[in-house]
């Protein structure tokens, strides 16, 4: 019972933060809103028996990406006391697409019915963590390796791109 309150609370938080991200005009606040949203999602993950994902979410996103993003903000904005304000453009087209798309998705999904057979109990006696661990090493080793390559390439490339000297511009 409590769980459901918590679940819907998380949902509400995520939804609100996501929507307010649209209207927020300050990059810092935007980043913070995203963090809130992600944390709420992590909570939802936990409630959906995906603890590992939840943890990764918190660690990688909140800890990783957001820090990087904040660095990005620092680097791409002149730090001068006043908060840097973000203008909006293409408001009409954005709302048009976004709202229509949302409506379509809701309409379509509402027509779907997903059998919710498995009971809480059946979920309990699985150890997701173990399954994931084995999976990464057996079934999903290939994507795992590719992901490794991907990370390597991203690292190498990003370093080159970011460090490319400005004198070379034409």
């Amino acid at each position, binding site marked *: 019972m409590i769980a459901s309150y918590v679940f819907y609370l998380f949902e509400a938080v995520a*939804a609100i933060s996501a929507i307010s991200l649209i209207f927020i005009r300050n990059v810092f606040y935007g980043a913070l809103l995203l963090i809130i949203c992600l944390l709420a999602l992590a909570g939802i993950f936990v409630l959906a028996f995906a603890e590992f994902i939840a943890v990764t979410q918190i660690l990688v996103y909140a800890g990783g990406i957001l820090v990087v993003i904040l660095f990005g903000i620092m680097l791409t904005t002149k730090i001068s006391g006043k908060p840097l304000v973000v203008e909006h453009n293409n408001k009409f087209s954005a709302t048009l697409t976004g709202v229509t798309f949302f409506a379509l998705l809701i309409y379509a999904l509402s027509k779907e019915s997903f059998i919710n057979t498995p009971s809480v109990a059946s979920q309990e006696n699985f150890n997701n963590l173990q399954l994931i661990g084995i999976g990464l090493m057996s079934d999903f080793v290939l994507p795992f390796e590719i992901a490794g390559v991907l990370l390597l390439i991203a690292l190498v490339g990003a370093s080159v791109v970011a460090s490319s000297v400005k004198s070379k511009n034409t």
Partner: protein
Amino acid sequence: MFPTEHFLYLGALLFSSGLIVVIVKKNMIMVLLGIELMLNASNLNLVAFNQLHPGSVAGQMFALFVIIVAVCEAAVGLAIIIQVYRYYQTSVPDEVSELNG
């Protein structure tokens, strides 16, 4: 457990708002945030659907890889943004439009 639809609706919301953010914001960092939002919508779906298949972790696994990829994207994206900023002295996407026609 909670009805899958409720996960999905939230996912749809996140996705759409992410899309709006991408289109609307006049700051590339914000655009990046929007993209992250969209990716997370997918994650939510994956996790939600994975509930329906106890014993298989395919969905969660997928979510895991999504997160990894998201990290790479964010890193590369920021690198590119910074590079652009070096040349253009701006982080407003519209002002970066020398290439057109």
